[in-house]
């Protein structure tokens, strides 16, 4: 059992630091954003499982040779917990606290997000007027150009009047195609755990890397979908006009990210060959399977 715990700990630490950093720095994700998103989710899930599992496996080691047998022994006689030494008990407590914290943070951020969205939607329904040129889009009467979508079961697509002033109709269609991709593929659900854990533990570099990388990947994916539906030139035109007018245009990182997005649409990198795409997805499954097997192996 101790050896399994050590293996899980090493796996967890590897995933949290060098693997996350490497994946964030890799170039291939821009050639297969969907595959890369799957790998990020697998890294997060496997890393969490491995670190929590390491604590639990080590903590329960005195009760049996494998985790399933130790859990069975514990269920048969809960007073067995007294047999754990100090170090084993501490490891178990740390793992349980960490698990509680992870779940608690995710629940709190989800609750806050849903509440903020409901408030925003209530106000939108009162203040924004439907835009006749595109079904489902609403216009907010404000001169600063901003386009966004409010995800959820009752989603909303919003353009400010500033967008309609700044863009011609084809460019507006490109913006809407991009936002609809976010809504249809529920990118908000993909991002939520990374935002929740990344913002509450900014000291874990891997989590921050993951948050930034995932945010960039969903934009790539939405750009890909939009570029397939409208002419790419309309999408780049919309990005240029809106990017120049955005309040964040003064930030160097914002303009750098915008340039990277523009460059990617104008000269799309070749998509990964099919074989590699399959390999990426298989790697994601294997990543999650590894700690699961280590935990459940009889």
């Amino acid at each position: 059992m101790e050896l399994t715990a050590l293996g899980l700990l090493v796996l967890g630490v590897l995933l949290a630091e060098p693997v996350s950093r490497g994946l964030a720095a890799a170039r291939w994700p821009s050639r297969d954003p969907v595959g890369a998103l799957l790998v990020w989710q697998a890294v997060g899930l496997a890393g969490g499982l491995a670190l929590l599992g390491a604590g639990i496996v080590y903590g329960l080691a005195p009760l049996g040779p494998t985790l399933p047998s130790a859990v069975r022994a514990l269920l048969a006689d809960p007073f067995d917990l007294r047999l754990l030494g100090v170090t084993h008990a501490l490891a178990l407590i740390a793992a349980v606290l960490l698990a509680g914290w992870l779940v608690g943070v995710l629940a709190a951020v989800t609750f806050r997000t849903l509440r903020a969205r409901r408030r925003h939607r209530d106000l939108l329904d009162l203040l924004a007027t439907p835009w006749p040129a595109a079904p489902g889009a609403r216009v907010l009467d404000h001169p600063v150009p901003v386009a966004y979508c409010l995800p959820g079961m009752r989603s909303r697509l919003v353009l400010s009047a500033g967008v309609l002033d700044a863009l011609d109709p084809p460019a507006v269609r490109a913006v809407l195609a991009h936002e609809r991709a976010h809504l249809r593929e529920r990118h908000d659900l993909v991002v939520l755990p990374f935002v929740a854990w990344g913002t509450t533990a900014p000291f874990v570099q891997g989590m921050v890397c993951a948050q930034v990388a995932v945010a960039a990947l969903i934009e790539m994916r939405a750009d890909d979908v939009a570029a397939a539906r409208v002419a790419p030139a309309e999408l780049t035109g919309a990005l240029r006009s809106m990017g120049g007018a955005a309040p964040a245009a003064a930030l160097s990182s914002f303009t750098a990210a915008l340039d990277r997005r523009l460059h990617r649409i104008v000269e799309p990198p070749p998509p990964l060959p099919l074989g590699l795409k399959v390999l990426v997805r298989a790697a994601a499954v294997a990543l999650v399977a590894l700690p699961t097997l280590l935990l459940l192996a009889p």
Partner: protein
Amino acid sequence: METLWTADEPLTARDVQDALAGRELATTTVLTVLGRLERKGLVTREREGRAHRYRSVASREDHVAELMRDALDAAPDRGAALARFLGSIPPDERDKLRDLLD
């Protein structure tokens, strides 16, 4: 809501009904809608004699400004609430953007 926004003083449900006379609304309907708006934190009411007087919590412009702040603000937990066309701002730049917006 429009009626409350344009009115200078708090209105009773009857006042709202009169202002919307063209729509032939029943008093109960108006009260239901006002109650719903109150639950959503958009209007407040105060007792006056046997009736309640309702007024909007903030002006139309204030609410539009609130929506725009939501949409442009880089606060971390709002990052998950909506998806902007121009994407999210990396965490280390959020403070700088907030300074720019203020």
